[in-house]
């Protein structure tokens, strides 16, 4: 029961650790695993299973080094208690321990647990007494060696000090597991020599000491190596990297007997190993010999006969790497010719698997020549010895599987290209063969080949063009054949478009792709319409869409084709949405075609026809949109709007439009929808502190400055004249506020240049009328902020807050919506001078003031007496402070003379019809602000206003 449960859980974990751990935590799962591992009742077969998460995902289960350390200690105690006969479990425990310690960096940090584990492994490796004689202990020993090797591989230099010990163990072991000791010994040797090469001044003596286990020779590897592998992963990397790779060397002089004897002993026994281990061992020894120039590569000679004849891919590979390292110091020219010939033969041997053959072909293209000509920068190059005759064993045939066929096609193309494809030579004949082969493939596709054949054919065609598109006779022949093929099998449209795209991308100087598209346009538009199926038509439209992307290709025939298929006589289209969309796709590309001017009328006709007659509303709408765009936007603008959507994301959009049905609208959608910016981009700030409140309607405002003193009129006459102006409801009904539109600090540079900004305001209460939108042509971060004038029309002149938002366009043509910080309109911002008739002088205003004052005080007159009110506001202010206050806040509204310091008379007009009158006098105890207003509801606002300014003035004085 439990076992089934665990098997399921472990397999669920291994299928998707992330999903498994979303249901629990790594910590809890690890604890569960460890508990079960310690449980004596659990079967060992289950326990083996429990170790697999630790082996495969140690870092996930032990997220920190300390957890790794604890887990390792736990596992070691489990190991100590485990009976020797549970071999499988003991082996898996060692593997799990290795994984946990390596992946939590306990090993590279030389933690306690990792030292203990290392000692445990060495102890197992050294304990060669097999008590039971059944080989059980041997398996554990082999695994211990594997673990030691992995520790050394992950933490190079870890075992350098034990080199002699390991060499001895290897030599003494006669049973089959000497292989494990040999692999371990070789790797430790390689890493130790590498470390010596990194030490300045290290030489023969050091090498000797290392091999002899003589640690009395000062060699501070212990601390060095841990430093080295943290910083430098070069030691992990293979040293045999081709002609350009550099190998660090250790100068020892010719006498390095000890190393030679170790090498020859390892090599002598190498045939006893499995091919995989032989290959690894030889590779490590190749690295060692290339690091120590004192040892001649000839030490490998005795192995060569065996290696050159092998059928094991890894052994031949290691031989090639050896050749790469030692070139002609180990391999004669004859060897080189033989190896190449062998590679060619193996590349086509019918008994080898396809991946092996492909690998051998890859080896031919990266053949390690004794005298490399190219610098071996990783590109494919042909070996000089690969003649067309030799390579002819690898000519592609229709019987090849597709991967082999393409690899051969590529290789042979390189061979013939090298020979020269003009004239009568082998290259030219070879090319003729390749072309013939390509046409055979085409014939198979033509006669209804499978998807795999189709894809293979197009890949081969691409290769052919890639190498030979300059050979006119073939490339134009291919175009012709492709067109014929397309007419028979219109479902190949996406493949052909892909071929055109890729050849255009990769062969920038060739115009083959345009030629193909032009030819396809011809065959599509010339083909008789009568046999056209709906399927064909939709493919044709895809094709024409791609054709229309080419500015060089005239589009008249495309338009003729479009108009002939939408005319009612041939209308099988009825109202298919997809088809309509494909039609619009072509139109869309035509809208941005460079020759649009000449296409304008027929294109407009087609769009109009679609708008009126196509049997699908969505398509009609889209067509109408295109029609409108075409007929109303200028060419530049049209191109601006449409190309943006097309090229956005490069080719990807193009591809998407082939597969995704909605794609046609997509580019446009992004152009036509308004994107939202989360953060505010700009705001309105009050423009300067110029005197406000001179409404433009008040023409005579200038006059107030002229000290014209006309004869004062009667107060009630003045009032009447004044009030008569308000019969026009629009008279002086607006408060005008000036703002500057400025960028917020720290915004995306994408928004530093904005255009066509339309500001929209929403009052938060109903004290003001709705505002109309305001347009600002542009806003550049580095220029003067544009002025924005708000015309507020109060119903009641109370302080208010306005919400503001804006729609604007960025340079890339996208539209955005943003919200501005709220605009607070203070009470005093609604203050204005009374809109006196133009002819009035200062005296008339004084008369007006007195008239109003009397009227309000007497609670009579025209205003509803219920609205009139008087009040008194007092405060402590020195005389100078009072004058400063008046100058600062009331100057524009002052009716009395500034020089008349006894009593200041101030008149505020607040649209639409309110007045506040102040008489300010300094009494003995305080300054008295006598207030009279014809709108008592303003009293709280005016008193809070007065309180603010007077207290500010006090502070300023204080």
């Amino acid at each position, binding site marked *: 029961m439990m076992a089934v449960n665990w098997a399921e859980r472990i397999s669920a974990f291994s299928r998707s650790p992330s999903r498994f751990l979303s249901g629990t935590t790594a910590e809890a799962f690890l604890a569960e695993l460890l508990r079960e591992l310690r449980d004596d009742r659990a079967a060992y077969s289950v326990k083996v299973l429990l170790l697999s998460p630790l082996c495969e995902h140690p870092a996930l289960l032990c997220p920190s080094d300390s957890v790794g350390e604890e887990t390792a200690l736990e596992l070691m105690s489990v190991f100590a208690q485990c009976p020797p006969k549970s071999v499988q479990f003991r082996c898996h425990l060692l593997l799990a321990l290795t994984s946990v310690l*390596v992946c939590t960096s306990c090993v590279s940090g030389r933690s306690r647990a990792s030292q203990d584990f290392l000692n445990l492994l060495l102890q197992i490796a050294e304990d060669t007494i097999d008590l039971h004689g059944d080989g059980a202990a041997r398996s554990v020993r082999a695994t211990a060696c594997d673990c030691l090797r992995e520790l050394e*591989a992950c933490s190079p230099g870890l075992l350098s000090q034990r080199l002699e010990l390991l060499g001895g163990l290897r030599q003494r072991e006669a049973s089959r597991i000497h292989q494990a000791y040999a692999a371990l010994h070789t790797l430790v040797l390689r890493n130790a020599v590498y470390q010596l090469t990194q030490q300045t001044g290290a030489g023969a003596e050091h090498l000797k000491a290392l091999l002899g286990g003589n640690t009395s020779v000062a060699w501070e590897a212990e601390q060095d190596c841990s430093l080295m*592998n943290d910083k430098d992963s070069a030691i992990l990397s293979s040293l045999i990297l081709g002609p350009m790779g550099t190998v660090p060397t250790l100068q020892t002089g010719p006498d390095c007997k000890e190393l030679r004897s170790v090498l020859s002993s390892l090599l002598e026994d190498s045939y006893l190993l499995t091919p995989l281990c032989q290959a690894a061992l030889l590779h490590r020894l190749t690295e060692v010999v290339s690091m120590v120039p004192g040892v001649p590569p000839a030490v490998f000679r005795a192995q060569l006969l065996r290696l050159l004849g092998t059928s094991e891919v890894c052994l031949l590979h290691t031989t090639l790497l050896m050749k790469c390292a030692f070139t002609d110091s180990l391999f004669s020219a004859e060897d080189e010719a033989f190896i190449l010939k062998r590679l060619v033969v193996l590349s086509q041997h019918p008994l080898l698997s396809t991946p092996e053959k*492909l690998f051998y072909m890859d080896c031919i293209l990266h053949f390690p020549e004794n005298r490399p000509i190219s610098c071996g920068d990783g590109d494919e190059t042909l070996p000089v010895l690969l003649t067309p005759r030799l390579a002819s064993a690898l000519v592609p045939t229709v019987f090849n599987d597709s991967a082999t066929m393409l690899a051969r096609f590529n290789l042979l193309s390189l061979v013939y290209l090298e020979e020269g494809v003009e004239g009568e030579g082998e290259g030219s004949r070879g090319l003729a063969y390749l072309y013939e082969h390509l046409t055979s493939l085409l014939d198979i596709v033509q006669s209804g080949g499978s998807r795999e054949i189709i894809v293979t054919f197009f890949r081969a065609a691409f290769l052919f063009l890639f190498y030979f598109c300059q050979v006119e006779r073939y490339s134009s022949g291919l175009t012709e054949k492709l067109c014929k093929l397309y007419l028979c099998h219109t479902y190949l449209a996406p493949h052909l478009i892909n071929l055109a795209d890729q050849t255009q991308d990769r062969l920038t100087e060739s115009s083959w792709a345009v030629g193909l598209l032009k030819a396809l346009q011809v065959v599509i538009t010339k083909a008789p319409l009568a046999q056209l199926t709906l399927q064909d038509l939709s493919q044709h439209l895809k094709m024409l869409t791609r054709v229309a992307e080419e500015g060089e290709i005239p589009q008249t025939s495309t338009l003729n084709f479009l108009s002939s298929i939408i005319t009612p006589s041939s209308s099988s289209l009825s109202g298919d949405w997809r088809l309509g969309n494909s039609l619009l796709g072509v139109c869309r590309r035509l809208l941005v075609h460079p020759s649009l001017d000449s296409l304008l009328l027929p294109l407009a006709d087609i769009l109009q026809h679609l708008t009126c007659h196509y049997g699908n509303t969505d398509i009609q709408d889209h067509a109408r949109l295109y029609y409108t765009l075409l007929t109303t936007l200028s060419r530049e603008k049209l191109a601006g709007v449409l190309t943006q959507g097309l090229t956005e994301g490069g080719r990807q959009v193009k591809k998407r439009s082939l597969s995704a049905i909605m794609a046609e609208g997509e580019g446009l959608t992004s152009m036509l929808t308004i994107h939202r910016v989360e953060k505010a981009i700009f705001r309105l700030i009050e423009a300067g502190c110029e005197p406000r409140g001179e409404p433009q309607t008040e023409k005579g405002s200038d006059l107030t400055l002229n000290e014209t003193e006309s004869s004062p009129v009667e107060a009630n006459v003045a009032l009447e004249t004044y009030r008569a102006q308000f019969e026009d409801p629009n008279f002086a009904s607006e408060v005008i506020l000036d703002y500057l539109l400025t960028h917020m600090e720290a915004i995306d540079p994408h928004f530093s240049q904005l255009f066509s900004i339309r500001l929209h305001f929403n009052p938060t209460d109903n004290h003001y009328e709705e505002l109309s939108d305001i347009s600002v042509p542009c806003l550049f971060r580095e220029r003067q902020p544009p002025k924005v004038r708000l015309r507020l029309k109060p119903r009641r002149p109370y302080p208010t807050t306005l919400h503001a938002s804006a729609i604007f366009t960025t340079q890339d043509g996208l539209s955005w919506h943003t919200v501005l910080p709220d605009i607070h309109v203070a009470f005093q911002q609604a203050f204005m001078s009374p809109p006196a008739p133009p002819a009035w002088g200062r005296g008339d205003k004084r008369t007006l003031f007195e008239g109003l004052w009397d009227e309000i005080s007497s609670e009579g007159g025209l205003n509803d007496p219920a609205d009139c009110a008087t009040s008194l506001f007092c405060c402590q202010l020195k005389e100078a402070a009072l004058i400063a206050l008046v100058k600062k806040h009331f100057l524009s509204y002052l009716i009395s003379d500034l020089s008349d310091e006894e009593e200041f008379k101030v008149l505020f007009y607040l649209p639409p019809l309110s007045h506040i009158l102040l008489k300010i006098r300094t009494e003995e105890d305080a300054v008295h602000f006598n207030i009279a207003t014809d709108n008592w509801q303003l009293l709280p606002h005016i008193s809070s206003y007065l309180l603010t300014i007077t207290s500010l003035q006090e502070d300023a004085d204080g």
Partner: protein
Amino acid sequence: MSVRALWIISHEKGENVSVRFSRRFATVEHRAKSLAGSSYIAVPEENTVLQLLLTELGLSDSEKSYVALRDDCLHRQRSPAMELRVDGPGKGTLWPVLAISQGPLILACLPLVDAPAEPRPPLASLLSVSQGLTLLAGLQTFLLGSGGKPDSEGLASRLAMLPAILLQVCPLGSPLDVPILGAPATPTVPIPAGNQKQPVWKTGLHRGRAVVNVALIETVRSMQYGNRSRQDLWDVYGTVTCKVRHPGSSLCHLTASSVDNYDGSAFSGPYKFPFSPPLEPFRLCSYTSQVPVPPILGSYRLKEEENQLHVSVTLKLHESVKNSFEYCEAHLPFFNRDQMGVVDVKVSSGQLDVSKEKNLLIWALGQKFPKSREVTMEGKISFSGPTPGPTDSLCTELTAYIKRGGWAVKGQAALASVLATKGSSFRAGRSPCPPPHHHQSVPPPPFDPDPALSTSG
């Protein structure tokens, strides 16, 4: 020289795909991380790998005729290594992924790149690639057997053995060996401990009589035009498999030489090789060769008339070939047609089996050709069955071929004659000193790209 992860996937022609086994090697992954530095791409979870792998192998979305990611013409599989383009967090390209696919199984692994990651090193510079290929091939043979088609139960039981097998052959991501096929040879004794080291590829010593079994499988592929102006083409290849029961630890000796006439190289031999064979059957050598004439000359004519196919076949055994077989069969498959209806075909010798659901005629020729060494088949086939038969992209319309279903040659004599005539040299799979494996191969002239496998009447 290690692999980061291993996956075993089963599928039925791209359907019912599932990961049957997977193994990640955490310590190798740890090394991959330090080697690749900032360009490190972690191995994604199983399902992601599966999807990417299927796309890369062209097995995904089989109902769609074109998928950009799968069918891009730029995307060339000219090396055995694939790129998996991982999306989402940890985005990047996982390379080099090796995969081998046979029957219902796909085996894949990701070898460690033990070289600077940028620029991408050539595949040929990474020993882990050939190691990975060997491991995959070994596992494939273990799982499928050499026949290549196990029943699902057999496969499941072998998959269940994999954890124990991997402990032996690839405990920590570095492949050490390939799984050994079949039960260990009996009866054996462990090699006595001594100073002489035991070959790893030999599990013990044989007790009993010395026995040597040799099996040869040779395949001849031939294209015959029946046209004087076009040269017929054929090639020959084969494998020699041995099972040697050799008592004690003494060595066998094998003499080999090359008769490759245009190869005057130092490797021509003759060589005498001391040779200690393993206990299991092993492939002694593989070869390719050219024989002067194809063993059977054939003529195959098809003519289509009113939904009936007129078939006419003549097969002639060459004089140089011994007229004695264990069995001999000719297979005539028909593709891209409806299922067979009426088959009215007469043969001059042997028997005809009709497999209507496979659209296949099997002509059993028995153990020998008649004295004239010539057999004929003549008749009409109608294809009027209710369902379409098998398809093939090459054999369309009147293109068809004859395949010799089986043709086993009896006894040792044939082997001797092959060895004598080919002079092929030998290579032992696990032998200590295999001689140079030599393929005698004259590069054939290019095959006709549009072969007339059958000439229409």
